C-alpha cells in the first residue's frame, strides 16, 4: 500500500488486481503437475523404488541366507509350479533359496547401475560441458575422444579388461563406468552449446560473472533435465552389461548373487527347469524397463517444448 510508483508507465500495471491470477504457476508447480499426470514415469519410478527398497533391506526381507547351500533341497520348483512356501521361488542347483538370491542380486544390479552411471556421468558431463561452452580447440579434442571411444565396442573391451584384471564387482563397475561416458559427453555438449547461445549467458558475462559461476548457475540448471535422462539410460546400460559379463562368467564371481550370474548358472538346466532362467531374466527385464520408463517420463515432463 505504501509503495510509491515513480514511473508513470508502471502505475497501471501495479494497480492491476488481476496480476496474481495472470501469473501462472511456478515452474516447480508445473513440473509436479506433469509428473503426477505421467503414468509411465510413475510406474517406472514405483518399480525402481520397490527394487531399491528390496536391495537396501535385503537382510530383513530375504527368507533365507542367499549363500546357504542345502544339497538335500536342490532344484525345488517355485510355489506356482507345485513347490512349497518354504522356498517361494524354489532353489537352485546348490539348494540355495532362489528368492533370497534374487533379493540380494538387486543390490549388485542397482549398485553397478548407480556407481557406473556416476563415474561415467562425471567424466562425460565434464567433457561435454567444456566442449560445448569453450568450443574451438577444447571442442575438437573432446570430439576426437568421443569418436575414439565410440570406435571401441563396449562389451568386447570390458570383456578383455575383466579377463586381464579378473572379475569382481569393483573391477566390473569401474570398467563399465570408464566406458559409458560417451553419451553423456555427446548430449551435454549439444545441450551446452544450445544454452550457451541464450542471451542470459551473455548477460551474465556482461555483468562480469566468472566462468565457473556461469557454468554452475546459468548452464548446469538448464541442462540438468537432459543429464537426468542420460543417467537413467546409462544405468540401464550398465546393469545389462554387468548381467552380460556375469553371464559369460567374466563379471561378478560366484557365489555372489547376481541376476546375470543366476541366468548363467541356470542355463544348463534351461530345457528342464526353464524358471531358473526365466525368473532372474524377468526381474532384470522389469528393472531395465522401469528405468527406461522413468527416463522417457523424465524427458517428457522436463522437455523444453512442454514448458511455457
Amino acid at each position, binding site marked *: 500500500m505504501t509503495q510509491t510508483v515513480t514511473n508513470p508507465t508502471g502505475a497501471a500495471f501495479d494497480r492491476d488486481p488481476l496480476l496474481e491470477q495472470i501469473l501462472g504457476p511456478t515452474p516447480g508447480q508445473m513440473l509436479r503437475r506433469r509428473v503426477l499426470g505421467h503414468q509411465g514415469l510413475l510406474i517406472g519410478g514405483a518399480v525402481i523404488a520397490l527394487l531399491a527398497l528390496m536391495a537396501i533391506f535385503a537382510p530383513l526381507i530375504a527368507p533365507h541366507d542367499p549363500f546357504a547351500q542345502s544339497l538335500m533341497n536342490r532344484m525345488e520348483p517355485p510355489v506356482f509350479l507345485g513347490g512349497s512356501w518354504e522356498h517361494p521361488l524354489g532353489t537352485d542347483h546348490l539348494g540355495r533359496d532362489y528368492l533370497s538370491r534374487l533379493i540380494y542380486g538387486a543390490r549388485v544390479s542397482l549398485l553397478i547401475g548407480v556407481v557406473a552411471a556416476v563415474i561415467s556421468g562425471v567424466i562425460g558431463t565434464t567433457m561435454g560441458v567444456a566442449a560445448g561452452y569453450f568450443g574451438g580447440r577444447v571442442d575438437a579434442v573432446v570430439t576426437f575422444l568421443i569418436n575414439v571411444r565410440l570406435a571401441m565396442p563396449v562389451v568386447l573391451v570390458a570383456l578383455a579388461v575383466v579377463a586381464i584384471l579378473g572379475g569382481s564387482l569393483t573391477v566390473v563397475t569401474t570398467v563399465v563406468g570408464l566406458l559409458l561416458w560417451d553419451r553423456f559427453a555427446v548430449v551435454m555438449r549439444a545441450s551446452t552449446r544450445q544454452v550457451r547461445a541464450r542471451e542470459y549467458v*551473455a548477460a551474465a558475462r556482461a555483468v562480469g*560473472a566468472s566462468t565457473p559461476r556461469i557454468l554452475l548457475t546459468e548452464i548446469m540448471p538448464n541442462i540438468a533435465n537432459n543429464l537426468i535422462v542420460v543417467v537413467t539410460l546409462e544405468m540401464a546400460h550398465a546393469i545389462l552389461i554387468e548381467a552380460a559379463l556375469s553371464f559369460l562368467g567374466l563379471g561378478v564371481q560366484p557365489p555372489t548373487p547376481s541376476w546375470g550370474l543366476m541366468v548363467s548358472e541356470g542355463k544348463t538346466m534351461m530345457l528342464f527347469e526353464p524358471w531358473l532362467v526365466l525368473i532372474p531374466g524377468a526381474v532384470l527385464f522389469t528393472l531395465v524397463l522401469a528405468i527406461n520408463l522413468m527416463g522417457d517420463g523424465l524427458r517428457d515432463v522436463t522437455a523444453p517444448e512442454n514448458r511455457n
Partner: protein
Amino acid sequence: MRNETKATNPVLELKNVSKTYSVKQGLLGKSRPLTALRDLSLRLEQGEVLGLVGESGCGKSTLAKILLGLEAPTSGEVLVDGAPLGSQDRLALARRIQPIFQDPYSSLNPRKTIADIISLPLRVHGIGDAASQQAAVREILDVVGLPSRVMHTYPSQMSGGQRQRVAIARALVMKPDIVICDEPTSALDVSVQSQILNLLADLRRDLGLTYLFISHNLAVVEHLATRVAVMYLGRIVEEAETEALFDGARHPYSEALLTSVLTPDPSLGVPRMNLGAAYPNPIDPPSGCAFHPRCAKATEACARQRPAPVVDEDGLIACFHPNGMAPTRSRPAEAAPRLSASV
C-alpha cells in the same frame, strides 16, 4: 545545432574495427570468412542516444558484443573513455556498461527467480549483503514499473513486456552510465513496444544514461535517438542528427529505410523494403559500394569502387550520389577524417 563539446567527449569509440567469423559451409566443412564488421568507426558521446539502424544481419549485434567485450574485434581498437577496452578491469567496465538484449524469452534464466536474476550483478560484484541486495532489487523493480511481489516468481510466469522490464532492471541495478540496447523492443507485441520505449526514455532522463540504441526499424529510434547511424553490410553508410535524417536522408539506403517506415503497415514488424534485389550474402559481398545492386542511383563507378566515408558538418556519408547534394567526385577509399576534424 552541433554542440562543440559533444564531439570531444566520446565515452565509447570504435576505431577501424573489423570482425571476421569463419563459417563452415555444407557437410564438407570448408571454412569461409564472413566479415560482419568492416573497418567500422563509431563514437558514442556522453549523454547522447545514438540510434544504430540497419537490416537484419548487417552486424549490429556483433558491434554490440564487441562494445560489451563479449567478442574481440579481429582488428581495430575499442576505446572506453579513451583507453583500450582490453586494458581495463572487467568488473569496472561491467559497472559502467550494461546490455539490454532483444529477446526477453532468452535473456532471463528460466531456472531463476526474478530476484535472483536482478541481484546477480550485485552478487557478482559483492555489493552489499543479502538484505541490502533485496532492497536494491525492490527499488529497481519499482523504477522499471514492476510490483515488488514479482520478486519470487519465475520468468515463465511473466509476459514479454514484464520480462523486458526485468531485463532492464538487471541492466540498471548497478547504476551504469552506458546502456547498449540491442533491439530491446523487436521481440515484443506492438502494444507493449511503446511502453518499453517510453520507459527507456524516462529512465534515460531520470538517470542520465547514455544509450546505444540498436534497431532494424528507423521508426523505433525516431523519438529516442539524438543521432542516428545507418549501417549496411558491416559499414556505417550515413550518420546524422535524428531530425536531419528524418528531414532528408542523404544516402539512398537511409532513404529506402525511411520510406519503409512511412509505409502504412500497422504491424510495424520488419520494415518492407522497396528494394529490388535481396540483401547480399555477407560471405560474398558485392564489389564497390555494397549497396549498389539494390540502388536506383547506382552507376558503373558504384560497382567498381567503394565510396569512402566523408565527414562533414552534417555527419557522415559514404555515397557517390548522395541526395540533396551535387554529385561528388570520386574519392579514393581511404581513411576519412573523423568527426573531430570537422569541429
